[in-house]
């Protein structure tokens, strides 16, 4: 316990030392006083750790829990190689591979953009495509980046017990220029849509936290309850620079179904009951205090814009106990958020340091009145699907359904347009014909130049490169539905390239659609600058509205996996037949041919002769008139018998030995 306080003289004032060991604590305190003072004198900044949890009721009776842990280390020069809180593995990784930004996410399930929101920091930053997604920006010369990326995938694969090393192959990663994130060619992006996410990935992730899951907010991560959810996304984001040092954000976003008792579901509306829940319902745990080394430890309860609007409309103020709902504990603070100067959501803040084992925090929400609200959607709802049947060709279609958001925001202008950026990586065995791009807006076909402002294609190279498509589109505001289609041929692979379960099909990673004119940033005008909440900082960051589309499953034809020997022998036989018979036809001599012709005119054929012999009949010597013929067949018979005897003997001896 005292060891924790080494780097944190500030903690001592709070008096968290256990009552039983004051003497030890005080002595250690004095022992390290000088070193701590020296360290703080050399480096004004120190390693920091904060932990936060955000809980939010979702319109479809589910609850969102978002854990956010930030560890930061000051620039390397000031502290040398030693770390008190910051995970050493990560700082070594950053130093070795010269990473300036990195994001790794493990996701199971799909973020429901219609129900859970598509126009807010949560969906743009923390909704990730299923499976593993990794991108990194390197601070290296361009020629070294690919090799560094390969090493990085192996390191991460070892760190997180996942098959991230499959991203090593050049067929698995791409380098987008502007479709994903603007960069100078030093960004690499890779996704493994089929990677299963499990607790074995969570454990190494938790190991990076100073308190692991032993105390503080991370202690809420009761595995059976968080893996039971509808959506589970575990993310690690690194930023590093000379001035900032390294900032490591670890987030875990889960969407859970509160397992409340049926009697507690008080209100029904159109058959829908909003469940009452608390932390104990969601995680089977209560929060008993903070992680001692954390600088701040907070729990937020966020209520959506939809609820806030209803509460405001009803005339009551937005206190923690109003006529619609009541929170189980009184919050320490209420923060109102704004988006585009419109009040959006409200946050009730609880400081976890006020709670302890004796007085655990079990904050929850109880509904008083039935309430139906919706989340703000993104300007277009993007989805992607496959068209066509059979295993030869098909089409990828991206469809955009308008959510009429622009009407809410900017009235109803007649000739405005909405920009959308599409970024899509297609594996090489899906051979896309980019010239076949067709665009339909509200059912009528448009020429490509009418809609596409900018397009950047890296065509796929067989067994070498995936295809990358980056496209900037401009849709008219009045568009209700738009569709883009691209034709493709399905590739045929070598038998070794098929995965073990080849008939399941192959996954095409999610496409990313972003709307650069729309920012999901929130502002908190009333926020206390002393609050220093990394989670709210993230919410305030100016990030464009993004949404990931579905993963596509493409079935590919398979060859017969059991056939290699048969195919090799058959093919070689046919070629031998060609070669042999053609050479034989060329080799024939006319003289021989004529002799042969004479012979065949007089010959009776070998098989009738043999048959006659077997029957015991004598071959008519006058008819064939050639003793050489019969002696020839005798020789042949002798040869056959000899070979048969030799074979039997060989078999016999080989069996004996």
């Amino acid at each position, binding site marked *: 316990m005292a060891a924790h306080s080494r780097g944190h003289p500030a903690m001592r004032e709070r008096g968290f030392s256990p009552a039983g060991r004051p003497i030890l604590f005080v002595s250690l305190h004095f022992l390290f006083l000088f070193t701590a003072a020296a360290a703080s004198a050399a480096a004004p900044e120190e390693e920091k750790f904060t932990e936060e949890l955000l809980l939010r009721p979702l319109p479809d009776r589910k609850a969102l829990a978002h854990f956010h842990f930030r560890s930061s280390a000051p620039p390397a020069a000031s502290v040398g190689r030693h770390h008190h809180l910051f995970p050493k593995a990560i700082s070594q990784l950053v130093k070795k591979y010269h990473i300036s930004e990195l994001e790794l996410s493990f996701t199971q399930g799909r973020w429901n953009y219609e129900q859970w929101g598509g126009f807010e920091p949560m969906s743009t930053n923390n909704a990730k495509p299923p499976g593993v997604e990794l991108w990194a920006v390197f601070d290296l010369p361009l020629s070294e980046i690919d090799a560094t990326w390969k090493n990085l995938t192996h390191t991460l694969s070892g760190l997180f017990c996942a098959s991230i090393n499959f991203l090593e192959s050049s067929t698995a990663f791409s380098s987008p220029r502007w479709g994903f994130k603007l960069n100078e060619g030093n960004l690499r992006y890779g996704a493994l849509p089929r990677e299963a996410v499990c607790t074995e990935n969570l454990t190494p992730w938790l190991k990076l936290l100073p308190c692991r899951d032993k105390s503080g907010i991370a202690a809420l991560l009761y595995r059976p309850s968080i893996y039971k959810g509808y959506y589970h996304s575990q993310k690690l984001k690194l930023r590093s620079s000379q001035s900032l040092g390294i900032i490591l954000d670890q987030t875990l976003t889960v969407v859970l179904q509160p397992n409340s008792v049926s009697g507690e579901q008080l209100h029904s509306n159109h058959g829908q009951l909003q469940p009452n829940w608390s932390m104990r319902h969601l995680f089977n745990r209560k929060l008993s205090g903070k992680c001692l080394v954390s600088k701040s430890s907070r729990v937020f309860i966020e209520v959506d814009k939809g609820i806030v609007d209803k509460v405001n409309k009803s005339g009551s103020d937005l206190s923690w106990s109003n006529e619609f709902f009541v929170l189980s504990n009184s919050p320490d603070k209420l923060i109102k958020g704004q988006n585009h100067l419109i009040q959006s959501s409200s946050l009730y803040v609880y400081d976890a340091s006020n709670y302890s084992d004796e007085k655990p925090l079990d904050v929850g929400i109880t509904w008083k009145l039935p309430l139906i609200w919706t989340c703000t959607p993104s300007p277009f709802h993007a989805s992607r699907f496959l068209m066509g049947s059979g295993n030869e*060709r098909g089409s990828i279609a991206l469809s955009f359904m308008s959510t009429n958001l622009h009407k809410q925001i900017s009235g109803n202008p007649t000739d405005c347009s909405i920009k959308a950026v599409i970024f899509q990586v297609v594996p090489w065995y899906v051979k896309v014909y980019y*010239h076949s791009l067709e665009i339909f807006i509200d059912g009528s076909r448009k020429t490509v130049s009418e809609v596409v402002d900018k397009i950047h294609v890296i*065509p796929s190279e067989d067994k070498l490169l995936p295809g990358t498509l980056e496209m900037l589109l401009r849709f008219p505001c009045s568009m209700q539905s738009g569709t883009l289609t691209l034709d493709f041929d399905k590739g045929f692979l070598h038998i070794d390239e098929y995965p073990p379960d080849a008939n399941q099909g192959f996954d095409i990673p999610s496409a990313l659609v972003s709307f650069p004119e729309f920012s999901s940033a929130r502002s908190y005008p009333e926020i206390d600058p002393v609050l220093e909440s990394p989670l709210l900082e993230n919410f305030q960051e100016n990030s464009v509205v993004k949404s990931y589309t579905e993963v596509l499953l493409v079935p590919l034809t398979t060859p017969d996996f059991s056939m290699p020997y048969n195919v090799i022998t058959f093919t070689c036989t046919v070629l031998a037949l060609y070669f042999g018979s053609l050479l034989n036809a060329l080799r024939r001599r006319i003289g021989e041919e004529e002799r042969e012709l004479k012979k065949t005119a007089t010959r009776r054929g070998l098989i009738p002769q043999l048959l006659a012999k077997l029957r015991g009949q004598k071959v008519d010597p006058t008819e064939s008139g050639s003793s050489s013929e019969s002696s020839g067949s005798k020789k042949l018979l002798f040869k056959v018998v000899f070979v048969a005897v030799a074979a039997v003997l060989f078999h016999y001896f080989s069996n004996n030995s």
Partner: protein
Amino acid sequence: MAIRYWPMAAAAVGFRLVLVLFGGDLHLASRPEVSTPLTSLRRLAEGYWLKQASVSPYSGSMYHGSPLLLSVLGPLTNSRADGHHAHIYCSLIFVAVDFLAAMLIRATGHKLQMARSRSLKLLDLTKAVNDTVNVSAGDVASLIYLWNPWAIVTCVGSCTSPIENLMVVIMIYGACSRLAPLAAFGYVMATHLSLYPAILVVPVILLLGYGPDAPPPKVFLIKDNDKTTRQRVVQQFSWKPVLHFIFWLFIWSCHVLLLSSVILKKVGGLHEMFEKTYGFILTVKDLSPNIGVLWYFFAEVFDFFRNFFLIVFNMNIIFMVLPLAVRLKHRPCFLAFVYTAIVAILKSYPSAGDSALYLGLLGLFVNELAEMQFTFFLFFGYIGVSLLSPVMHNLWIWRGTGNANFYFATGLAYTCLQTVLLVESVSSMIKHDRKLRLLVTS
């Protein structure tokens, strides 16, 4: 036998036009029998699109054809006439190309016919041979080429095979009529488009040196001895047209390379072109099914042996060049047919268009090969394979009820059939020569 040639030829062209204009989209372009990764017009359109986007047309693994085709056919793939399928203009060009090829085959046939009757006259065999069969070989061959269902399907099915075939025919016609520049042009273009016609340099040089097909020189010698005249009727190898040919070969190659490098100037170089065209042909990188056997072989063979078998299969084509040239040097035109047939059997991405070419050329030797065996079996074999192959492909790819072996089996059967046709035609040509000799000696 009187064949009303012109009505038949016009009907064939008309039939093609009807299919192109009113057939709608027959989806022939996606048939593996018709278009291969090398000849697919769809891939050409993709290459052209990439080039327009100032990316190398060879970036990505779509286009593997010539840059010349790209600049000729590319703009046509872009324009789309209403109510017709995508590549209507290209298809119209292919109809013209097919007609031209048929005309050249006919002219070649007439040249061969003249040479044949001249040599028969020299041997005093005109009566003995003409009694049995005498058809205008050129007309027959040209009609076979025009009415061959595979040639029609290839022409209508948007692939560039008709142009490759035309170049081979131009080369043979030029060599037969001793037009060295034309022969060199055909040779350079055919080699540039699909590499394999490179081995046809042997028959072309023989044609230019010795002239069109004739009975073996021995027969003439026997004849001479009988007559005890010292006058040599056997043609000497004349070097002049051959040197001419080599000179023009050089000039045309320079032209083609120069044009290619101009077209690819800003978007990639000649090195990339060779790698993506010839390299792609020789290393069998695309494993999509076709009527040959190599795709399945290389999809199944162990990676360790891949290079070995690549060498074996490519050498297999070259191995037969010399023995055939030695044995059939007096019949260079027939030698050219045999080489095209070998190429069609063993090339890495065979298609029906290659078969259409050698079947058309086969018609040139209708008089010599009259006594060929197994013709009934071969005829129905070809029909059977061309009916079964789409069925098996459908079962495997579209319905999922069959598997790859079904389709591979038709490929095997087809290769066997072609082998039988090849061997039978070679041996019956040799028999024909022997018959001539027997007739002379008797």
